């Protein structure tokens, strides 16, 4: 290496350091791009697969499910248990019980594929924690739908609150899912 090349290398190296410092200084004054998680949350991607949930009909506030049990049959892990009953003055059956054993669910989506009424979908809920596994081995989707229906009813106060068909005894022990509700 000649003398000149050696000096040039030192000079170029130093200049590259200054370039690096200029870049970081530039980044320093640009806006923050991170999401402050508990206070801000990102909208989940449309293809995100949370646990399955019953679809809420935005017109009626009821489930679209007719308890045909095709999902139950389609499930390769056998983790869905559906029960339905024919209510007074209705032609089709309505779902009364929809239990999901989320501990064995592999989120394959066969149930959603199988559903002829598009009555189930993947939820976008990823904040799932619990101290007991019962919370996830006996997820009561009808009850969860009922909770969502209340929010739905609040959001459109003009509409008369449609009564959710829930005959029969309420499930004996449905542990509450502990959720971190992002505000």
């Amino acid at each position, binding site marked *: 290496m000649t003398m000149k090349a050696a000096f040039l290398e030192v000079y170029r190296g130093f200049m590259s350091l200054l370039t*690096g*410092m200029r*870049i*970081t200084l530039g*980044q320093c004054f*640009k806006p*923050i*791009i991170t999401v*402050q998680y508990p206070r801000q949350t990102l909208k989940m991607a449309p293809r995100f697969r949370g646990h399955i949930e019953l679809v809420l009909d935005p017109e009626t506030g009821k489930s679209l499910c007719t308890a045909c049990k095709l999902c139950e049959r389609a499930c390769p892990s056998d983790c869905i248990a559906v029960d339905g009953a024919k209510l007074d003055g209705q032609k089709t059956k309505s779902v009364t019980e929809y239990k999901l054993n989320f501990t064995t669910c592999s989120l394959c989506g066969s149930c959603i594929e199988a559903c002829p009424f598009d009555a189930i979908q993947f939820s976008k809920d990823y904040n799932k924690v619990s101290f007991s596994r019962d919370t996830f081995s006996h997820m009561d989707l009808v009850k969860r739908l009922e909770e969502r229906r209340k929010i739905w009813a609040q959001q459109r106060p003009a509409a008369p609150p449609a009564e959710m068909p829930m005959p029969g005894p309420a499930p004996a022990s449905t542990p509450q899912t502990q959720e971190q509700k992002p505000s």
Partner: protein
Amino acid sequence: MSAIQEILLGPGWPWVRLLLYLVGICAFVGANAAYLVLAERKGAGRIQRRPGPNESGYAGWLQPVADGIKLLAKQVMVPPGTDGFLYRLAPLMVMAPPLICLTVIPYGENLVARNINVGLLMVFSLGSINVMALMLGGWASRNKFAVISSARIVSQNVAYEIPMLLVVITLLMVTGTMNLNEIVQHQAGWFWHWNFFKVWVNPLMPVTFVIFFICMLAETNRAPFDMAEAESELVAGAFTEYGGMGFGVFFMAEYANIVVGCSLATILFFGGWQSPVVILSGPIWGPLWFLAKMYALVLTVIWIRWTFPRTQFYNLLNLSWKILIPVSLVTLLLTGAMMKLPLLLHHLF
């Protein structure tokens, strides 16, 4: 007011003066360590486009308090098999030198605890003790990572002490005094009288500053030269076995050392408490100018840390022995030649 000035600045009341400066310097070091950690984390956050600590207090302003409580609440444990005496001594020895160094730093025209004639020499001699204390801490820990780190600290500091002292000798030749206050007074006037801009004394003066600054980074074991605490290689280097406030003191000392190094750079190259524009000087403005310059350098240190990745060890030594030492020798020779040239010409003609 005049009484306070008399005590702080004048020759009388030596014990009160001593006590006040002692408390003041300790408070200054403590506050600096606490809030420079926050500045560091905030700076890192800004450079990486995130807010940094923002949970405790308004925008994270109470984070140092939270950190301090956490560290104080932890047990100070001496791991079995270590040299207990040295293990406990090392944090104290690493904390003492920067505290002592700050006594000779002139913060303002008269605001200096001890205005001694060999201030510069004292700062550098105590700076070497700091290295030894870190080495002792690593050695006493009886941990292989800590011992490797100790060896690195020593070889790194030996390598970087040389160009740093050569650069300082260059400045000493220009100023002709080791009294830090006199060095500052030497740079009075507009900002082009600062040593950094004195290219007519030595055309390589800015290069000299760059060498000094790089060496200062290496001496204080800061990134990109933080071989002593290379997390990815050595867990936490010499501090691996330290927990609680023992670790905290090492951290405080690191920031105190940065403050001392940047103060020295300010005094040697940027005119200390001198105003850059002649006006706005005086007993109040002096310390403010000093702090402004010093903290600008401290922020640059933080900025550098979050810009460059850690160097490899042989690159670190190559940089010192192959580039910094030859260049600083050249500046030394050049300064000598520039100073003696007029004399020679005067004699010849």
